[in-house]
């Protein structure tokens, strides 16, 4: 059992009772809102399709491995652990992909090693940038994202540095 298991039923109960207390027709309001939600879920499908195709092709074709191999000499000069390079590249691209890479890091180095801990912190401190951006902007028909992806990547780099530095100091 975790926190969200407890919050969920309480939240649903609170919303329904509060709604009834405020004399809202909860059933009609729910259905009306749900129609909108279902519509936007269908509307984002092509964006999900586009991003899933590109990212899976990129990772599975070996293009990602190649990118890791050309970055390796550079990152080893600055002392960046090469074991984390693949995770650092896959994390902004794919949630399920990064889970796979993370699992193999835990298997190979152990969860309680420096690499294992840094990878854990990194997993929890950054997000799938391209997918989220494509879906959110796609849902409202925006095609010019301006600086969003650039700053998302800067933040991802900040979280990599933070993960390494913090794990170095705290354990």
């Amino acid at each position, binding site marked *: 059992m975790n926190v969200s298991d407890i919050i969920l039923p309480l939240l649903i109960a609170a919303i329904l009772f509060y709604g009834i207390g405020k004399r809202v027709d909860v059933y009609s309001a729910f259905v009306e809102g749900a129609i909108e939600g279902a519509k936007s879920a269908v509307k984002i499908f092509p964006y999900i399709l586009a991003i899933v195709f590109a990212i899976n092709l990129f990772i599975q074709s070996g293009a990602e491995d190649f990118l890791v191999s050309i970055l390796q000499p550079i990152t080893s000069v600055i002392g960046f652990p090469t074991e984390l390079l693949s995770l650092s590249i896959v994390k902004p691209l794919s949630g399920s992909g990064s889970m796979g890479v993370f699992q193999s890091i835990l298997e190979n180095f152990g*969860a309680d090693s420096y690499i294992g801990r840094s990878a854990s912190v990194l997993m929890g401190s950054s997000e799938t940038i391209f997918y989220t951006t494509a879906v959110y902007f796609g849902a409202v028909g925006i095609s010019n994202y301006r600086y969003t992806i650039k700053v998302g990547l800067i933040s991802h780099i900040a979280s990599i540095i933070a993960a390494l530095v913090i794990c170095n100091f705290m354990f």
Partner: protein
Amino acid sequence: MKNMWFSLIFLGLLFSFLNGKPEIVMNVLFYDLEKSIQLILSLIPVMAFWTGLMNIVEKTNILDRFSSLLRPLVRFLFSDLQNDVKAVNAILITLAANMFGIGNSATAFGIRAMQEMQRSNANKKTANNAMCMFLIINVSSIQLISINVIKLRADSGSLAPTEIILPTLIATTFSTLVAIIFAKYYERKSQ
């Protein structure tokens, strides 16, 4: 995004040939694209459910009181929105849903918030500052506890699967602050 999408596909196609595995393209087409329909099929009920509940909440006006408490912060982060209460409410709910990871609700609320912001957006094809800030905060991850990571650590035999909670909080706070600072910097630069 256009260039990014093209580059990923181009590199993917190129390397599938260079590595002598052109059948990869077919595999992705059949197996992985099928996963995207599974993803959407699981998103439809979840999103419909949460926007349904959300609609009840909106009809009670309780959020207006809550969001007025956070007004100074909101005014700094999302200055374009001024007093657009509906958009601000939707943003706050998304961020709260993200922090606590409640029942996969974040996407539903996030899209809702984007729709609210789009109403007052001058150029419907271009993201305004508030939208960029909203997306940037979202992708910098503000989740307080990542259950999945702790579970995988425990499964792999860690002696202290939860010891990464505090370091993760510090790291994610740092990266979110960096994200906000850079978002503000580019916001000013583009004016």
